[in-house]
């Protein structure tokens, strides 16, 4: 995924209107592009072509259904470790080698390694954490989600 800003000149007003409108939702209907295009004053084929281009230039990361991973039966847990600086790179290698580790970030804090465990079953989480503790000799703090709040995040295009 692109992590640098795009030249703003690459987007015109219509592109921005599409980005602003469709991040709120896209219809589930027989001709959803035609429906969404009508609301934007565009034709179906113009909307499809523009979304295609926005995806190609990396302004759209995903277009389609967003799933609740847990509803599909998976288990996830945010974890953190305090890793001594001189052992950091070795620990990265050990932790990243585990297939259960989905994301791993270095963060500026005493707890300097933050990763997400993703397992098929809930019991997999504590097993994976225990294995990381065994292999690294470091304590793994588990921060399971107790409550997730509805997100109002919007990106003004």
């Amino acid at each position, binding site marked *: 995924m692109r992590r640098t800003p795009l030249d703003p000149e690459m987007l015109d007003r219509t592109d921005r209107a599409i*980005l602003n409108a469709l991040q709120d939702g896209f219809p589930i209907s027989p001709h959803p592009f035609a429906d969404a295009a009508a609301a934007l004053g565009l034709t179906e084929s113009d909307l499809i072509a523009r979304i295609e281009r926005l995806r190609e230039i990396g*302004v759209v990361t995903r277009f*389609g*259904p967003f799933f609740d991973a847990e509803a599909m039966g998976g288990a996830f847990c*945010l974890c953190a470790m305090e890793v001594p600086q001189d052992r950091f790179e070795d620990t990265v290698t050990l932790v990243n080698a585990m297939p259960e580790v989905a994301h*791993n970030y270095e963060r500026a804090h005493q707890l300097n390694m933050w990763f997400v465990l993703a397992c098929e079953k809930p019991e997999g989480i504590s097993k994976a954490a225990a294995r990381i503790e065994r292999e690294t000799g470091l304590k793994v703090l588990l921060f399971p989600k107790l409550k997730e709040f509805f997100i109002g995040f919007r990106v003004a295009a």
Partner: protein
Amino acid sequence: MTIDATDRKIIAATSGGLPLTPSPYGEVAGWLGLTEAEVMRRMQRMQVTGVIRRVALAPNHYALGLVANGMSVWDVADDQAETLGAKVGALEFVSHCYLRPRALPAWPYNLFAMLHGHDRAEVEAKRSDVLRLLGDACHGHDILYSTRILKKTGLRLTGEG
């Protein structure tokens, strides 16, 4: 929120996104040997039950200039954490918002909110906004900036039960 094998096939077929054709649900139905009406009915049901959070376009916030972010963490009074957490999550610069257990004494924070901005200064300004919103219910807070991505893999969806 139960889903069956057919739902899983639909999830697997669309986990990379919808096809950019005039009838994308009909196209997916064709791949799976289902009718368009059944794909739409099942997706609508999954949306009602929360398996599908939404069908939408996700803008790349980095490409649009939101390149700075920080994981803000807050020690919020337990009896107000749910109400205040809902308010923080609803802010338009917050992309993830969760209650998590504290890990005392090292970690006193129970509310996690990912804040986004065009630069570090804007993220810090948003952090002040959250602090004002939490008021006296907040007993301590911090923000963790990522210094390096060590690993990032997509969620694996096998479509199996």
